[in-house]
C-alpha cells in the first residue's frame, strides 16, 4: 500500500477517485440548480444553508482539495506521458479506429473546465460564500450574499456569460463522456461485455448532467428577456 501512488496505475487511481468525487458533486449541484427553476425561495434557502457555516466550509475545502489533486496529477501524468513518447514525433499519424477525440485530449478539455471554473468561482463563490466569510453585507455587485437567486438571474441575463458557460459545459461534456467509463476501467471494473455498456452509460449520464445545467441556464436567460 505504501508506495501505491508512485506507480503509474496508482497515480491514475487518484484521477479516477477525484474524478468520481467531482462527478458526485456535479450531480448534487445540478439538482440544487433545479430548485431555481421552480422557486427562488427554495433556492435561497439552500444558499443560506450553504453559506459561511462550518459544514459548508469543510465541504468547500474538501471539494477544493479534490479539484487540486485532480489538476496536479493531471499535470504530472500528462507531462510524464508526453516524455515517454520520445523526442521525435511521427511525421504522419492517423486516427485509430474506435478511438474518441476526447480520450486523447483530456488535458485540454480539463483546461477548458478549469478556466470556466475560475470565472464561475468569481461570479458566484466570491460574491456569495466569500463575501459572507469576510463578514461583508454586500458583494461586488452591491447585492446581499444570501440573495442567491437574484445574483444568478442577474449573471445569466447577460448573453456573454450565457455563451461562456455553454462553451464551458460543452468542454465538460466531452471530458465526462470519456472520464466516466475511463474511471471504471482504471479501477478494473470493466470487461469485454461491460465496455459497451459503460460507454453507453457514460454518454447518457454526461448528457443528463451537462444537459440539465445548460437547460437551466437557457431557461434563466429566456426568463430575463
Amino acid at each position: 500500500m505504501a508506495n501505491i501512488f508512485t506507480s503509474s496505475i496508482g497515480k491514475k487511481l487518484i484521477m479516477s477517485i477525484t474524478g468520481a468525487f467531482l462527478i458526485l458533486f456535479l450531480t448534487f449541484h445540478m439538482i440544487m440548480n433545479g430548485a431555481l427553476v421552480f422557486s427562488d425561495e427554495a433556492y435561497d434557502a439552500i444558499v443560506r444553508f450553504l453559506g459561511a457555516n462550518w459544514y459548508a466550509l469543510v465541504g468547500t475545502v474538501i471539494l477544493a482539495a479534490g479539484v487540486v489533486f485532480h489538476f496536479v496529477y493531471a499535470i504530472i501524468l500528462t507531462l510524464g506521458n508526453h516524455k515517454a513518447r520520445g523526442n521525435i514525433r511521427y511525421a504522419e499519424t492517423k486516427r485509430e479506429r474506435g478511438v474518441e477525440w476526447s480520450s486523447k485530449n483530456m488535458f485540454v478539455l480539463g483546461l477548458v473546465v478549469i478556466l470556466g471554473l475560475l470565472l464561475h468561482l468569481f461570479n458566484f463563490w466570491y460574491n456569495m460564500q466569500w463575501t459572507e466569510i469576510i463578514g461583508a453585507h454586500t458583494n461586488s455587485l452591491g447585492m446581499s450574499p444570501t440573495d442567491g437567486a437574484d445574483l444568478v438571474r442577474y449573471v445569466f441575463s447577460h448573453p456573454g456569460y450565457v455563451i461562456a458557460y455553454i462553451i464551458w459545459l460543452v468542454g465538460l461534456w466531452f471530458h465526462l463522456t470519456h472520464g466516466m467509463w475511463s474511471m471504471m476501467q482504471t479501477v478494473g471494473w470493466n470487461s469485454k461485455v461491460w465496455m459497451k455498456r459503460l460507454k453507453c452509460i457514460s454518454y447518457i449520464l454526461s448528457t443528463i448532467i451537462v444537459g440539465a445545467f445548460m437547460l437551466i441556464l437557457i431557461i434563466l436567460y429566456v426568463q430575463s428577456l
Partner: protein
Amino acid sequence: MNFKLKIWRQANAKAQGRFETYEVKDISADTSFLEMLDILNNNLIHEGKEPVAFDHDCREGICGMCSLHINGEAHGPDTEITTCQLHMRKFHDGDTITIEPWRSAAFPVIKDLVVDRHAFDKIMQAGGFISVNTGGVPDANTTPIPRADAEESMDAAACIGCGACVATCKNGSAMLFVAARVSSLAKLPQGKVETLSRAKAMIAKMDELGFGGCTNTRACEAECPKGVSISHIARLNRKFLTAKFKD
C-alpha cells in the same frame, strides 16, 4: 505498380535521422510489404548504396519482429495483421508511402527502421514466468479448465510482443503488452498463483524503463495485430490494485 517511398534513415542510435525518398517500379500487387523493401534494398545494393535496415524474422505473423509505422499506422493499413502480412494490393499505383520506425522513449532507434525492444524482455524477466513447482507433466485434462477461462487466456497469449501498442499509444505505454502477459497466466491454474506479485513486478519494471501510463484511449487495441483487448488492462489494473492494497 510503382511507389514513392519516404523512409526514415538514421546511421546509428546517436546520429540525426532524416527522411529519404526512393522509388520502386514494377512491383506486383501480390508482393508483400517486406518483399517490396527487399526489392528496394536489392536495387540500393546494386547502386552501391547502403540498404535500409528493418526488422523481420518469421514473415508469417507469429514472431513479432517486423515493425514499421506505415502511412501513420503501426503495421500499416488493414487490421489485425503484422507488417509481414501486409501486401502491396492494399495500396494504389503511384502512392507515396511514409515508413517510420516505432517512436517511443523506451524503444530507441538502433539504425534506420530498427528499434531496440529489449525493454519488453526486461519486463518479461521481471515477472512474466511461472516459478511455482508445477510437478511432472500431468496427463491431459487432469486439471479441468473452464472453456471461458481457456479462451480468455489464449486471447491474451496471442500477443507476439511486437510493440505496436507502445508505438501507437500517445503515452508510449506498454500496458496492453503487460496486460496480455499477466492476463494469459492469471486465467490458468499454474499461472494464477503468482498473479499479484507478477502484476506488481511487471508494472514496476514498466514504469522504471520509461514507458508512459495508460489513459484508456484504446488506440493500442485498434492497432494490435492480434486484437488483444483492453479488457485485459482492466484485469491488470484490478490485480495490481488488489496487490497494492494487500501490502
